[in-house]
């Protein structure tokens, strides 16, 4: 393993470039889009060209505009979900790691059950309780992912707690909060950050799936999943509507995953050998 670092940074750079392009699109969409999202002045299912880079949808709305808005929604979904997942997951995981015996087992089993409970069905429940908005989707995805994060944090923290220096710190009278802040968190964060980056990609996919089923961001702010669903029936006659969001979605998820891989190599020395 003589030249790992260059290859690793290449992964990181490739990921940053891919995801960065889409991030740029999302940022630009905040300041400028070719048409207003609810401008229906284009013709029904117009083909690419004629003032519409990718053509228009059924209502005559510009597809490129929707694609740009969609990239923003994808980032909102990813960030929002990961924040929720991190907040709840870390709390639960640390708590579980510090408890022992049956309480620990119960928390572990609870996390396992939660993990097995699909995001989609959680989302249906959240939508049933609130209404179908991006916030509901993000909440559901974040909750589902908090179980995954919690499970990981529990393992990581347990591993750290078993180390000798923790025992040393405890015998020297250091308080638990200080142990957590001083020893546990610094030791687990590299692995945690990598996992959260992976969750970011998964959250974007999950939001697309929810929107595909009509449980995601409401119109007129089309998310990519909603675009895919609408374009599904007109795939043969107007393929741009189905291809463009699909490609961007795959690009963004791969980009984020590459960043996660790259981060693992730079941040997590223990895992360096793996890549």
């Amino acid at each position: 393993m003589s030249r790992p670092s260059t290859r690793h940074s290449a992964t990181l750079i490739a990921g940053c470039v891919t995801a960065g392009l889409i991030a740029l699109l999302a940022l630009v969409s905040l300041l400028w889009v070719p048409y207003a999202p609810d401008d229906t002045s284009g013709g029904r299912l117009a083909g690419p060209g004629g003032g519409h880079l990718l053509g228009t949808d059924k209502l005559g709305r510009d597809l490129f505009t929707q694609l740009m808005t969609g990239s923003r929604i994808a980032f909102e979904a990813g960030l929002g979900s990961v924040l929720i997942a991190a907040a709840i997951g870390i709390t639960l995981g640390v708590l579980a790691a510090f408890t022992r015996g049956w309480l620990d087992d119960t928390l572990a089993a609870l996390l396992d059950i939660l993990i097995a409970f699909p995001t989609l069905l959680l989302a249906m429940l959240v939508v049933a309780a609130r209404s179908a908005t991006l916030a509901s989707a993000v909440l559901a995805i974040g909750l589902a992912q908090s179980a995954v994060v919690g499970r990981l944090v529990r393992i990581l923290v347990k591993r750290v707690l078993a180390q000798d220096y923790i025992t040393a710190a405890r015998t020297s009278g250091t308080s638990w909060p200080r142990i957590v802040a001083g020893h546990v968190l610094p030791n687990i964060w590299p692995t945690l950050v990598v996992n959260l980056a992976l969750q970011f990609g998964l959250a974007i996919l999950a939001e697309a799936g929810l929107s595909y089923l009509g449980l995601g961001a409401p119109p007129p702010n089309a998310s990519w999943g909603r675009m895919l669903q609408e374009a599904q029936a007109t795939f043969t006659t107007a393929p741009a509507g189905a291809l463009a969001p699909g490609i961007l979605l795959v690009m963004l998820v791969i980009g984020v995953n590459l960043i996660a891989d790259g981060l693992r190599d730079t941040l997590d020395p223990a895992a360096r050998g793996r890549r």
Partner: protein
Amino acid sequence: MARYILRRLAFLLVSLALASVVLFVLLRLLPGDPANALTSVGAAPEQIAAARHSIGSDRPLPEQFAHWIGQLASGDLGTSFISSLPVGPEVGARLRVTVPLTLAAFVLAVLIAVPAGFLAAYKRRTWYGALLNGVSQLGIAVPVFWLGMVLIAVFALNGGWLPAGGFPQDGWAEPAEAMRSLVLPVATIALVMSASLIRYVRSATLDVLGSDYLRTARALGSSFGRAMWRHGLRNAAVPVISILGIELASTLLGAVVVESVYALPGLGSLLATGIAQHDYPVIQGVLFVSTLAVLLIGFAADILQRIIDPRLRGRLSGGAR
């Protein structure tokens, strides 16, 4: 080991009991009214109240809970608010689609992912190692409904080799048709599942390849194959089994998108309909059965891990946890 199994079983039962209480309470906290699913535009308020009364959703919660627990104790999952069909047989019918679907996809995914993941790690410096890794990256990023659409277009609409969806009404009484209708759904799930499994297997293999004991074993003169078999496999298997257990459990209900794309009457779609209609007996029944399945799978995974790795035997819950 026998004592461990007993303890683990007791734990399983307690978890199940806890889960069913939590489930019941959470569901009833959700806003929503099962009577709405029975209502049509034009219904008078008295009709809606009558609907609530006839399904019993207007009774006090403790009473409803006692009723449900009483039924459960006698092995009855209750009756659907909406269809009036007993939930137990219905869940059973859905399981006859979902369990074969999940198991077949799972086995196929493992058959693809274990060798591919191992190769991706062991031959990571070669072009095909990189290719395998790249393909798995792509596989993770493709939405499952999109993959389903493509497979249907190629194999059902253009090729005409396989049905585009549906499941024979008489189910496994028509084995050939039942199997044909599961081919594409199984392939869809297996492809998506193996993409993420490949990465786990690859990472577990890399851990083992870089470990001291493997180097020691080889230095002591074991052949690579022998060292890998005696030490590597065992060590790599423990975390992988834990992941496999979770994948298997989450596919039981998580196949709902695939079931929708392929119009399969599976457990996930029963639950989805139940949630949309606020049909509590159905939701409770499905979730009770799937919670039981999750716990059993976790149980099996723990036992398996202990058989593989005796070092874990002192601990109650799974090694890779």
